[in-house]
């Protein structure tokens, strides 16, 4: 039984970073996730584990600091929110191109533009389809509780180094700001050794070069082929999701993060009215649980993708169920920072699927 | 007895920029007469005696194609 605490989601992320053996954190203030940098600054982990915490002059500088520490072979992390994450896209493309591990957390707020500080899920495309330039993907985890905010940090570091690829934790202001009980995992000691590919001083080996540049197109194509195979491997081995009342479901909600929590209540409300509604919660958004959804599609009359956005993940659900063209797939979601209620979701569901007259 | 030095040119790495010719206080370096290297660049050669091995040419050469020897005093 690990140490139990009552924490904000943001604070759980910060504490988990220290416990996961993170070597360095580079961040920048932005609502709704400034608590992460504040917590790390107050915790002064340099004393506890030697972990470096530095506030950068911009998210642009922060992600390039992450790139640098990662290139040196270290466990490194940054966190921000939507506008800041947009500034980091170039850096993420460079990290993917140079095959560098690292953990990035996006506590999403309403967009586009300066948007709002309330929660949203409108960064799904940017997160899962590669928001920067070039063919690359981030492995994307979507926590739906303060517990997962902590657990996913450790998981993210493991996956980042397993695949030498940046890993994104896609959460939102709701989960970041709310407080919940969390069982913290036991601290993992910071690594004493550096990977053999790292640029950390060539003692006892030929020199290493960390770069995403190959002026020879055929060389660059070879590197891209390696990335393509890496993402296929992720799709094969790293899909994670949860199901809720799906065994006998006639209808399915697909929702992640905050929307999944809210939709659980909608499932209960629907079942109270005799509607066999189930919920599938993707935990990894890339790789997307397409097969799981496809398997369920056979028994379903309709799928509702519930997202606090105009509808982005719904496209992946449509892709996943393309062998069932007759199966209706719809989206519902408040957006712009407004959080939908379980009742609103049920009402939309009934209008879309039940009251067809 | 005058100090004697010499310059060994890696002909195929020379880019014919001429900076060494400019830097040589003894004016003993010049482009080879109507010859080019494997890359098509004119390259430099020692044209006459008088090199003192002062290394001026070598340290202004952006491609470090000049290796300098200087005869130690007997």
């Amino acid at each position, binding site marked *: 039984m690990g140490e139990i605490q009552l924490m904000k989601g943001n604070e759980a992320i910060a504490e988990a970073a220290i416990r996961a053996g993170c*070597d*360095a954190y*580079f961040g920048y203030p932005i609502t709704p996730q400034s608590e992460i940098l504040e917590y790390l600054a107050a915790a002064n982990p340099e004393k506890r584990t030697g972990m*470096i915490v*530095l506030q*950068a*002059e*911009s998210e*642009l*500088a922060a992600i*390039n*600091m*992450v*790139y*640098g*520490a990662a*290139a*040196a072979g270290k466990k*490194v992390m940054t966190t921000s929110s939507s506008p800041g994450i947009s500034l980091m896209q170039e850096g993420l493309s*460079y990290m993917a191109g140079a095959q560098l591990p690292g953990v990035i957390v996006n506590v999403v707020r309403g967009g586009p533009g300066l948007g709002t500080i309330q929660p949203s899920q409108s960064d799904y495309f940017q997160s899962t389809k590669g928001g920067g330039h070039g063919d690359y993907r981030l492995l994307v985890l979507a926590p739906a509780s303060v517990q997962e905010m902590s657990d996913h940090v450790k998981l993210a570091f493991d996956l980042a180094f397993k695949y030498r690829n940046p890993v994104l934790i896609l959460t939102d202001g709701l989960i970041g700001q709310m407080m919940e009980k969390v069982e913290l995992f036991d601290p993992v000691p910071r690594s004493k050794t550096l990977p053999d590919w790292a*640029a*950390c*001083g*060539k*003692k006892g080996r*030929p*020199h*290493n*070069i*960390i*770069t*995403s*540049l190959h*002026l020879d197109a055929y060389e660059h194509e070879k590197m891209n082929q390696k990335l393509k195979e890496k993402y296929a491997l992720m799709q094969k081995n790293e899909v994670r999701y949860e199901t809720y009342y799906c065994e006998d479901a006639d209808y399915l909600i697909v929702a992640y993060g905050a929307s999944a929590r809210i939709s659980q209540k909608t499932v209960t409300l629907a079942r109270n009215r005799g509607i066999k509604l189930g919920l599938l919660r993707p935990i990894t958004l890339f790789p997307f649980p397409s097969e799981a959804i496809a398997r369920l599609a056979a028994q379903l009359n309709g799928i509702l993708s519930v997202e606090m956005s105009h509808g982005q993940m719904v496209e992946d659900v449509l892709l996943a169920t393309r062998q069932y063209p007759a199966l209706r797939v719809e989206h519902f979601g408040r957006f712009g920072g407004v959080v939908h209620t379980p009742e609103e979701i049920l009402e939309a569901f009934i209008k879309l699927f039940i009251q067809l007259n | 007895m005058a100090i*004697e*030095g*010499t310059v*060994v040119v890696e002909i195929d790495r020379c*880019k014919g*920029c*001429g*900076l060494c010719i*400019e830097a040589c206080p003894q004016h003993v370096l010049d482009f080879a007469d109507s010859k080019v290297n494997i890359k098509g*660049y004119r390259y430099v050669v*020692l044209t006459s005696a008088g*090199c003192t*091995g002062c*290394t*001026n040419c*070598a*340290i*202004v050469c*952006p*491609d*470090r194609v000049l*290796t*300098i*020897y*200087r*005869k130690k005093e007997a």
Partner: protein
Amino acid sequence: MESTDIIKPENLVYKRSRLMTEQPLSYCPGCGHGTVTNLIAEVIEELGIESEVIGIAPVGCAVTVYDFIAIDWIGAAHGRATAVATAVKRVLPDRYVFTYQGDGDLAAIGTAETIHACNRGENITIIFVNNGIYGMTGGQMAPTTLEGMKTSTCPYGRDVNMQGPPIDITRMIAVLSGTYYVTRQAVHTPAAVRKTKKALLKAFELQKTNKGVSFIEIVSNCNSGWKMSPVDANRWMEEKMFKIYPLGDIKVDGKMLV
């Protein structure tokens, strides 16, 4: 006397650093980047720190400098080398870390990173080659392009009313307390090369004392960008560039000289 009997190991007084790889340099004939790249290899070799140094390569003419010197390198995004260097030095404080950047990289897109790394007093060495133009991309106007100087993006000469005068980022960062040694050198004559080498040696050695940033600007020619022969370009540089970018130490032991 035939010069061949002078060519003996004991008579060797100068040769290319063994840290230079076999890769021919990609720089144009007569370009100062070549001299600077070789000087860095010579300094690292002489200080015996080849296994403890990490270079941060820019985007610009020196973008593939990591192919030329056999040390560990990290290629940074355009303008971000000083942020990358900041992190590398923070997570590996006992290593030598330096950036190699051009004027576009350091004084245009990377201005904020340059200023804040200097203001934080990172214990890194910043090597800044200022040739008043964007060379790699074909000779466009840079922040350090001189008034009236023609480039592909100010073909009628830089108009300071429209594009502002050439910026002196080196003096700007010198006033920040985080910079400890700030100097402006050149590599167009033997004497200038020797001074630049001394400055590089001093800068790398300073990293051990954790006193803050050592910043070396090297004013250099750009023969293809300026459309001049290497010799003419160096002469033009002396007449024009040195007026706006005068050589010499600007800050030593944390104190402003100029």
